[in-house]
């Protein structure tokens, strides 16, 4: 049985998949180009501030479908629009009023909620991966693994996630889910469904972009030529149209277009490099120092040995000298003694001769 080349390549691919699969269990399909456009058919919402009338119905719809606590002030009390509000625990969305002072476009309203980024900063920041970018476009949150570190709140450029600060032991993050449970059943998000003027349009993000561009082109004077969320922070599934500069509606226009994963990727990719190279460097330095020490030690030993040898030799020499001297001394002594004895003997002999 012969193996065709295609089969062989197929096996290679399968082996590769298995290898990677064993590690994480996902197939990196588009890895080579590293360009990701987001889920192609993800849903989104287009908010058209030129249509918004500030009725707070969306807040009401949100509260109802998400079974959130009753608001501090009823939804038909429009005086709350005078205060600048933000999302908070139990409030996924708010509408704020802005006086722009522009002719004919004086008062505008803006709805605030999670923008459902294409590359969510919260998901990128979460160290237990509690946030998921679902194929529907909605960014969902899993309470069951959340540690409560609130790094997602630091990371979110739109300042959306909120935290139950009053919960001592079971606090969780809260944010708009784009009504994930509803949209997966084919229903509209609560806010979109209730909006009486369709300031919120629901549809596929790509359709919404087309619709937004169409509106801008048809009414160039009504809109500023910018779709907020098309590119901001890598793009969001919630898009915005406005008749005034977005800055005037409290939306930051200085966020840039770099997505959160791109922002952190550089720092993260250095990690394995440090792990790979630091041991080499450090053990290298260690080895060099050790070698230096060893050389030092050996030199020292040699020096000691030399010094010792020299000292020994000197001592030897001294010893032999002393010995010699001692011998000589002894010899001299003996000689002297012998001489003396001989002399004495001779003298005694002569003395004896004289007396006899």
């Amino acid at each position, binding site marked *: 049985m012969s193996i065709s080349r295609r089969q062989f390549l197929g096996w290679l691919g399968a082996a590769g998949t298995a290898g990677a699969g064993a590690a994480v269990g996902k197939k990196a399909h588009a890895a080579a180009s590293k360009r990701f456009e987001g889920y192609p058919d993800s*849903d989104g919402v*287009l908010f058209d501030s030129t*249509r918004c*009338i*500030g*009725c707070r119905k969306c807040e009401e719809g949100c509260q109802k479908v998400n079974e959130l606590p009753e608001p501090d002030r009823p939804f038909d009390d*429009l005086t709350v629009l005078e205060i600048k509000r933000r999302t908070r625990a139990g409030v996924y969305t708010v509408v704020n009023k802005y006086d722009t002072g522009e002719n*004919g476009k004086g008062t505008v309203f803006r709805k605030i909620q999670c923008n459902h980024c294409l590359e969510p900063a919260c998901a990128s920041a979460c160290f237990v991966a509690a946030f998921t970018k679902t194929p529907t476009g909605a960014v969902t949150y899993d309470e069951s693994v959340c540690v409560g570190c609130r790094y997602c709140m630091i990371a979110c450029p739109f300042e959306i996630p909120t935290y139950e600060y009053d919960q001592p032991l079971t606090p969780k993050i809260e944010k708009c889910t784009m009504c994930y449970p509803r949209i997966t059943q084919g229903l*509209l998000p609560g806010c*979109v*469904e209730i*909006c*009486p*003027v*369709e300031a919120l*349009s*629901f*549809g*596929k993000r790509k*359709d*919404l972009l*087309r*619709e937004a561009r*169409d509106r801008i*082109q*048809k*009414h*160039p*004077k*009504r809109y500023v030529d910018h779709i907020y969320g098309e590119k901001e922070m890598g793009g969001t599934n919630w898009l915005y149209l406005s008749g005034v500069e977005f800055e005037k509606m409290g939306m930051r226009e200085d966020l840039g277009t770099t997505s959160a994963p791109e922002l952190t990727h550089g720092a993260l990719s250095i990690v394995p490099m440090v792990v790979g190279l630091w041991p080499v460097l450090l053990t290298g330095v260690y080895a060099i120092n050790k070698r230096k020490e060893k050389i030092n030690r050996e030199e020292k030993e040699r020096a000691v040995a030399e010094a010792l040898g020299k000292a020994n030799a000197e001592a030897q020499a001294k010893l032999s000298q002393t010995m010699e001297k001692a011998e000589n001394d002894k010899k001299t002594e003996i000689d002297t003694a012998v001489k003396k004895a001989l002399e004495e003997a001779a003298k005694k002999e002569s003395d004896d001769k004289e007396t006899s």
Partner: protein
Amino acid sequence: MKISEKGKSVIRWTSCLGLLAVVVIYGMRAEGVTGPWTEPENKRPDMITIDAMKVFGDLERPGVIFLHDRHTEALSSKGQDCSACHLKETDTRGQERLSIKYKRLKDTNRNEVMSIYHNNCIQCHTEVASEGEKSGPLVCGECHQEKPDIVSSGQPMGMDKSLHFRHVKAHENKCEQCHHEYDEKSKTLIYAKGREGTCRYCHMEETQENRISMRNASHISCVDCHLKTKAKELPSGPVNCQGCHDLSAREKIEVVKDIPRMERGQPDIVFVKREQPDPYTDPEFKKEISENLMDQVPFSHVAHENANDTCRVCHHAGMDSCVTCHSLKGSKEGNFVRLETSMHQIDSQMSCLGCHETMKEDKNCSGCHEFMPSGLKTKDPSTCVSCHMKPLAEIPDSVQPLVLAENVTNNEPVENGSVHMSDPLAKMLLESRVPITATYDEEDIPEKVIIKKLSKKYEPTELPHRKIVNTLMKNIQDSKITQYYHQDPGTLCQGCHHNSPVSKKPPSCESCHGAAFEGGYPYKPGLMAAYHNQCMGCHDRMGIEKPATNDCTGCHKEKKK
């Protein structure tokens, strides 16, 4: 105390490092530390920045913020006039006038001009201060301010029809007193009858060669003349800054309503001219381009004269006809803007379409027009014929087309009181149109429309349909342009009954608008949003404050339970 050798070295090193630090920090500062600048609250129309020294190169210090009116007032309270600061000079016509420069006639050299300002300003300020009165600054930085706490609110001034008429009257039709042109041969300013234009055609933003800037020209001529007139104790125009440059002061200038047309040989009704010879009829050119050109546009010059304040509105660079610069193929003089583009550019106030588009923003129009896409591209091509009119089927033999082209392009002076010419064909075309002054008959307009489908929460809504139609009609009844462009009694209905052919019985809203985002399709509003947007949007644009947009019960009666 004796400094040790060690101490000395430390001092040496400290000073070296210190010096380095100073150099580095200075270098950083020099890199350009310009913090964010917010516009000061304090606004004045008479704020001038004295930067006359610019002619000698870069300024050493920021320009001086000078409040002209404040100085004029202060001087006049002391019995002094303009001559306190401005010297007399002789103009090209040998007449005396005040120089617009301060205490000098010429910018001689840097030091001299600088000392003229420094000596005179400071001297006067000192004198005033020594008399114990409030005086201007004496310290450098108070005049030379990097970030002035005051900002100019001055608006550019121009002459409109009414003002021109009043000047014509005051000068007894002596156009030459203002209008002039430069004669190359005699190197003098001469008056050319029939070639009068607006000042701005020659006097540009900045002084060029022998043409002074518009700013200088207007201040030399207007203010000087006003001053002289005032000296003769005759009624005169403003002589201070705010009189012309302050919006609220300007509103007080008398406006004459019924003004006779200016006499410059301009036509009444003509076709929008194409260049001669017409490249499209040029046999060479014909080969390239189809013979089927758009029908020519009959244009009522007189109607547009009446509707606009100045000639400049359309004639932005010269009194010649548009085609002089904007040829069919585009030319360098016209910045390569073709005739077609020049007429259809939606974002330009000088083009037909751009100006007409702006007119739709009128309260009476925008209620409907707000919802209609603007711009040529998205427009129904059938609307082209409202300007590019089909030639009449029958033209009487007696009517000969007028060859106007030569008359205007060769700039022949037209005698005073001449008859304004018209192209008989163009005139016939325009006159063939029937102005629409009414919509359908009362009985054809439903009096009330009951909308039941919107909500379970509220009672059905009664839409006072006929009342709305009548109000809309009443609003536009006197507008000529509306009558011209609303070409059918049913055109008005299209404001709400859009995207369907004109008809006495247009299709109901439900025939197009259903549930919101049906099938995930976001391009068309659902029925509820369609109603709400149309009603609220129109009310909002037309300035109808009641019912408020977020007051549900203003339109929907609460359902009784």
